[in-house]
């Protein structure tokens, strides 16, 4: 039984880690390598970098920081953002990423997931899915950073991603994201029935929220602001989880 993982998520734009609310000014939090070192030292189990750079040119700068992060970091990391082909993924993996996350491109062309799994093994393929509760579909899948609704119901889509060859699911509840009111537990209950690891995202505000998510089937918990701001230091969270009987790496 692997340890439950605690994963800080870092948004990167033009080679800098940023914190931002959409359509508002982004705040610069530093170079990816500096943040990576900090989280490595704090005992994070893994890092996820989501590159929110808009243009293709911006994305070409990311191989450089991915390479720097890989050389400095002694824990695994995932990179996502605009990965739309085996070639995109290969560049990131060659630069040193351990896994690539796919989202919009996989929804537009599901075969991408199989191509990635065939080329690199499914353990390299993280399927990121943003969902919102919906009266008709249970949970509806959104694309492009949550801005574009689809006709997909989340649970069948997660199953399909799994069948296509995804190695992990990074599931974000848009209803909860940024609220600090806790993860969408019902969503986790359903999604954790799938036979691949599940990373819960969206809604963490307190230590107990992480515990709930892990008790409801998540294999890993992801948060951003809470960790970046130092509101909840990772060592404190892990001590809390261990105290409550969760198997964590300390």
């Amino acid at each position: 039984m692997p340890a439950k993982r605690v994963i800080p998520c870092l948004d990167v734009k033009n080679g800098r880690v940023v914190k931002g609310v959409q359509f508002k000014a982004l705040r610069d939090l530093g170079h990816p390598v500096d943040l990576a070192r900090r989280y490595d030292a704090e005992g994070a189990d893994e890092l996820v970098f989501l590159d929110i750079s808009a243009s293709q040119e911006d994305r070409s700068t990311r191989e450089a920081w991915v390479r720097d992060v890989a050389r400095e970091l002694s824990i695994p990391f995932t990179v996502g953002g605009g990965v739309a082909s085996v070639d995109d993924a290969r560049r990131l993996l060659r630069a040193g990423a351990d896994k690539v996350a796919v989202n919009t491109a996989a929804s537009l062309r599901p075969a991408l997931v199989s191509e990635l799994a065939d080329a690199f093994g499914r353990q390299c393929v993280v399927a990121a899915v943003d969902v919102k509760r919906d009266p008709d579909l249970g949970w509806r899948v959104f694309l492009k950073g949550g801005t574009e609704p689809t006709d997909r119901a989340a649970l069948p889509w997660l199953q399909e991603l799994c069948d296509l060859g995804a190695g992990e699911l990074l599931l974000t509840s848009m209803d909860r994201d940024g609220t600090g009111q806790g993860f969408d537990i019902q969503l986790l209950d359903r999604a954790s029935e799938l036979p691949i690891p599940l990373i819960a995202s969206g809604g963490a505000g307190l230590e107990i929220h992480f515990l709930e998510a892990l008790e409801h089937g998540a294999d890993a918990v992801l948060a951003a602001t809470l960790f970046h701001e130092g509101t909840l230091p990772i060592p404190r969270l892990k001590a809390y989880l261990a105290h409550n009987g969760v198997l964590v790496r300390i």
Partner: protein
Amino acid sequence: MITLIDTGAGNLASLEGALDRLGLGHVRAERPDQAADAGPMVLPGVGHFEAAQQMLRERGWWREIPHLVADGRPLLGICLGLQLLAEGSEEAPRASGLGLLPGIVRRLGPGVKVPHVGWSRVQQHTAHPALPDPQESWLYFVHSYALEPGPETVYTARHGRPFSAVEARGRVMGFQPHPEKSGPVGLRLLQAALAWMGADASVPEAPCN
């Protein structure tokens, strides 16, 4: 000098970063004629057994590795690298492995999530001159297949069932976890394994006043 066998698919940046932090010199070799003249060889690997094997064949390594090992060159396989050193794998029933480590690599499960991704504890299985008792240390794993524990197993881990985490037969060793991704504990193990294989730390000489 450590030779990193470049299969084209593997992720060498993390491993190179780890070796740099340990002060160990290394060189990438796509083909055997690019290998260092002496010192340990490291076979990393991610991806599919058969695809990696194919690449090693194309680059001349598949034929050359057994000769090098027979000549006494130490060899460390990591993750898929370990699996390629075994006799074969269920992942590619038609292909055979290098046969430098005993056993057939089998799929994990049923009853557990596969791939096994994440941090698991390792236990000592057989004492080894270079590797300390890990005392339930956490190491990072990413794999769907594994060797069963056998007489040449040094550490085991569990995912549903026990499997071999570290194998050693003479100076041929295999790590199923990624020591270069396993924090300070992983780095220390990597250092211990490579030192035992004869790698020299290129530590600058201390001036003796």
